[in-house]
């Protein structure tokens, strides 16, 4: 899923400036699964904004909706209609959703309430971790199913570097060494011999470096 977490309230308030009528829009998609932008989080943010404005002695009028998803135009139309009576839309969607709304919100300012961080998985209660950088040329077949681009802090294709110690990466905060995970996987799947083949420099043109990607399926047009 796409991982995201709420921006610090102080930032949201400063971005809102003195906008009086704010429409909060949640999303039932990934941001609900990682407890960042679902209905509960919208309701909570409504209360926090009201309290904040009350503390600052400024009025605020808040509308709230939670859409099925904000990354499909069809789900936006009704909300955009209602948004006309507001000064600004504060979207709790991931970065993609916020932008699709912004592209269609005409003169209305659209602000993100979340920081989108990664494509990832839920690792345990209250903890999610990044798994994929969307490089467009999946390396997993070569590394036992563990991604060197994402899980290694230096995206080494021929790791580990000299800083790997006791299974952890040199950058600390408990980050596991990507290549330790890869080597363990290769070993357990009986493919450790693959380790000594040198992986050629990657072709990054399919990744973000090649410019914003577009996925076109002629067969579905």
């Amino acid at each position, binding site marked *: 899923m796409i991982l995201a977490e709420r921006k*610090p*309230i*102080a930032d949201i*308030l400063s971005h809102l400036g003195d906008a009086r009528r704010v429409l909060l829009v949640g999303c*039932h998609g990934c941001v*609900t*699964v*990682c*407890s960042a*932008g*679902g*209905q*509960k*989080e919208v*309701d*909570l943010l409504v*209360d*926090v904004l*009201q*309290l*904040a404005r*009350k*503390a*600052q*002695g400024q009025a605020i009028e808040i509308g709230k909706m939670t859409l099925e998803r904000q990354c499909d135009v069809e789900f936006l139309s009704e909300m955009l209609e209602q948004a006309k009576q507001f000064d600004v839309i504060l979207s709790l969607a991931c970065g993609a959703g916020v932008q699709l709304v912004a592209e269609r919100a005409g003169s209305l300012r659209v602000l993100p309430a979340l920081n989108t961080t990664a494509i990832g998985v*839920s690792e*345990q*209660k209250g903890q999610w971790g990044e798994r994929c950088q969307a490089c467009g040329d999946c390396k997993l077949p070569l590394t036992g199913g563990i991604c060197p681009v994402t899980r290694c802090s230096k995206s080494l294709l021929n790791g580990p570097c000299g800083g790997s110690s006791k299974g952890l990466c040199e950058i600390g905060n408990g980050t596991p060494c990507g290549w330790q995970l890869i080597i363990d996987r290769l070993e357990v799947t009986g493919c450790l011999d693959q380790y000594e083949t040198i992986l050629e420099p990657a072709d990054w043109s399919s990744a973000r470096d090649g410019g914003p990607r577009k996925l076109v399926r002629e067969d579905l047009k």
Partner: protein
Amino acid sequence: MTQLAKLEKWKGTLNKCIRCGYCYEHCQIYKSSRWEIDSPRGKLILLYGLLSGEVEPSDYVANKLFECFHCNRCQKACSSGVPIQDVYADAREFFLESGFDVVGTTSQTDHDLCARCLNCVRMCPHEARSFVDGKIVTDRLKCQSCGSCLDICSEKAVAIGRGFGTNPDELQRSIKLFFTQNSNAKAIVFSCSWSTFPGFQTANFDEQEADPETLTLVTVCSGRLNSQTVLETLLQGAWGVLICCCPESDCAHGGSGRAKARMNALQKTLEEIGIDPRRIQVSEVAQGNTKLFSETTKKFMDEISDLGALSIGGKQ
């Protein structure tokens, strides 16, 4: 063992219940409804009637046995030594096996709203929630109605069958009423039902008799109290919110730890928006420690009285 046989073995024990009613004051469910069938004594009498044939098993009767917050205060208070929770457990098994599909106070999931994010499955301290055939299912024998899953759900798809005054909407209704009716109202004290709360059983004051500054509300496990209820309390005009929970070591549901983590996050948010974080406080009060409960409340009230009301504008 035939289903009824499972209860048969408790007949001797049920005789031990002398129906003295000393368990009434301990049961949050009875105190909320005040119908005697909702008290531990009432439920034991029902089981007795089941064994003697004077009461037919029915959804209504089965549901009574599933309406319990497992706080175990009745069993602890029963000097006749009736192992009430063990009797209940067998009775629940009997009802489920006999096909009575009742929910009582166990947690239920609205499958249309549910985003299948499984956060509630991970949250459940009793492993009572699981994902089966595309749906979240509650094991009603394991569920202890502690409500840990209540707040974690981003879709607000999780609900406790019947709250007896402890569900979020019920709490918010009591809070709203308290602030509209009492000019002197200042704060809400949320207490979990294991942690001590004042002995008021069922009496309440006539309006002019007392104009209390605080209202104590029971949330069953403090881990079930959701952040929004606390914020809405401040929005209602509360000067502060105090949460009394059990010491973490005593909490059977891991609720104390969660309550502290959740309120800690809220305090940071308050700080960010210029409101003094001391307006939300969590403190541990072990079960039965009435003295500590009132001392804690008093200290809290002194502190927020200095802070004054959440005035409009200016440093809070």
